[in-house]
């Protein structure tokens, strides 16, 4: 297939359309705005809906409403807008309505650096909304991966009935690369109820722990609420129901973590040093890692594709196997390194942080790698 020169944000739009997105609601914000612009241009021509809402709170609400009618729905934003979306991301997690939320990260806190890259929203993607809740977050490091992972985001959200965050960054969003705009092989649609409307319980689940929510307006009249609810969907204060629901919505993801989590590893089996990265820092990390190997230095790389759920099992196994030193380049003051310290001892983690709006350069990283292998 011939490659085309595409911007990261555009690749996200193309993939969403190929995945069958039929509703987009958004609000302008740098550096994600091209996604809304392209959606506004392309969706009506496909007979689909684009709406510019009054803010990000409303955008998030609108995509949940649309998804409840069965529409594959999406929004796109950056840090400040992502903060506003947290309320209804929690609602989607609680009510198990599939949606895709793209966050093209810029520097924070607050308005921060609108045009510069960052990875400061890693923890917000996980814990930005209150309460114990599930989420899936994926992070591309290239324009092609943005295309690939946008499909994956829709598939995972529909399969597990959960909000999925596509955690891009300004570099990946604005960079242009030659990519293949292929048709996706596998498109997953949410399960349909097997019961008749009379027997239907919206939040009754089988061993998968995943409910089959009927689209609104198809004869299954039920109630959806952000309050703790039982299998019928109606509110309950019963300790048993509270415990059961919160456990189930979280276990729904934990139980399938091995299926959900993807990563790429390069030359890690005999590594003395393992670089761990996601998003745009993977680019510098891969270059440094390859150059080190050519010199005979035992350096490996793990590229996280899935940021949440975090691949603790994979990384702790790798640490036990190699006892390697982990070097963690990231565009924040240590959100990734801190999470890694739950599976790898702190003294075995070297941090390479950058929060000045610049990229982590290969030279910056190379110096740390050489120090570590010495």
């Amino acid at each position, binding site marked *: 297939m011939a490659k085309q020169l595409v911007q990261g944000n555009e690749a996200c739009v193309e993939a969403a359309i190929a995945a069958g997105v*039929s*509703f987009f*609601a958004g609000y302008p914000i740098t550096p994600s705005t091209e996604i809304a612009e392209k959606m506004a241009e392309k969706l*009506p*021509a*496909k*007979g*689909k*809906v684009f*709406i510019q*809402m*009054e*803010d990000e*709170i*409303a*955008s998030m*609400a*609108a*995509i*949940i*409403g*649309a*998804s*409840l*009618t*069965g*529409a594959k*729905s999406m929004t796109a934003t950056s840090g400040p807008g992502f903060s506003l979306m947290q*309320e*209804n991301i929690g*609602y989607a997690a609680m009510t198990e309505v599939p949606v895709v939320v793209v966050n093209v990260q810029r520097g924070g806190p607050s308005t921060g650096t609108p045009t510069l890259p960052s990875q400061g929203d890693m923890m917000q993607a996980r814990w930005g909304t209150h309460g114990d809740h599930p989420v899936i977050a994926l992070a591309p490091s290239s324009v092609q991966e943005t295309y690939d992972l946008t499909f994956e985001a829709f598939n995972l959200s529909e399969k597990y009935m959960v909000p999925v965050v596509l955690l891009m960054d300004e570099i990946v969003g604005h960079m242009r690369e030659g990519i293949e705009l292929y048709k996706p092989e596998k498109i997953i649609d949410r399960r349909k109820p097997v019961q008749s409307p009379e027997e239907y319980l919206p939040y009754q689940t089988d061993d998968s722990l995943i409910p089959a929510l009927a689209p*609104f*307006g*198809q*004869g299954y*009249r*039920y*109630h*959806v*609420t*952000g*309050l703790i609810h039982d299998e019928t969907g*109606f*509110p309950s204060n019963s300790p048993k129901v509270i415990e059961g629901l919160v456990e189930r919505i979280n276990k729904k993801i934990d139980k399938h973590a091995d299926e959900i989590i993807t990563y790429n590893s390069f030359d890690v089996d005999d590594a003395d040093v393992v670089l761990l990265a996601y998003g745009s820092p993977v680019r510098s990390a891969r270059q440094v890692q390859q150059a080190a190997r050519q010199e005979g230095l035992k350096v490996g790389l793990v590229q996280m594709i899935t940021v949440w759920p975090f691949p603790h099992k994979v990384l702790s196994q790798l640490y036990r196997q190699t006892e390697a030193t982990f070097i963690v380049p990231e565009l924040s003051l240590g959100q990734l390194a801190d999470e890694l310290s739950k599976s790898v001892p702190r003294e075995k983690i070297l941090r390479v942080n950058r929060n000045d709006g610049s990229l982590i350069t290969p030279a910056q990283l190379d110096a740390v790698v050489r120090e570590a292998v010495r």
Partner: protein
Amino acid sequence: MNYKNYLRWNKLPHIWCPGCGHGIVLGAFLRAVAQRELNKDDVAVVSGIGCSSRAAGYVDFNTLHTAHGRAIPFATGIKLSRPDMKVIVLTGDGDATAIGGNHFIHAARRNLDLTVIVFNNNIYGMTSGQFSPMTPHINFATTAPHGNFDYPFDLVELAKGAGATYVARGAAAYPRQLEKAIGQGLDHEGFSVIEAMSQCPTYYGRKNKMGTAEQMLKWQKENATVSSNPGEKIPLGVFVQVERPEYTKLTGQFIDSVSGGK
């Protein structure tokens, strides 16, 4: 059809306090629905947070009880994806005009075909009696123990100014008039707002020494009027009923013109 067929009887009794006006408003709404024999499967009822918003759980439609203030944008997503469905928002004075004020004016501006019934009890009842943007000036509330020096919104004027194409006000003390106002709102194609004055004897009434529910209803009777010359009284009736292209229709036409009807 009998309006009782639209209730989820197994979810009753409701959580509203004795003497609350919300049951009267809900009754007026359901009678208006019953007169039109709306098909339950084709109706979505969306609510926010507060006493009023619990009504969604008691009615037998596709029902969505959302976050505080957000009923209208959730309803916007449903309506745009399923323009054939009747989408109704049940909300309160705090829910619609404070935390949800921004969403309210923008849906009105778009003239999206939603019927929005605002249960106005002049107070935050669910959290036990704080003042709302529709608590009258120098009334009392738990967060206004010395009197509320904020000035309130006039919801009718707010909806008018924002571009709503149907705006009415009714009151629990005039249930038939309220039912009619809601019914005309359901029939109207476009953004319809019905303010429904409701009494809260437990908090608003008690804090402002307005007496029992019965006395509060008498107060409504004496201080609100369906007359076209209301004088100093609170006017009830239909204040705006105009035709303007509806948003999902415009969206549909736009999609057809851009996609060539594909």
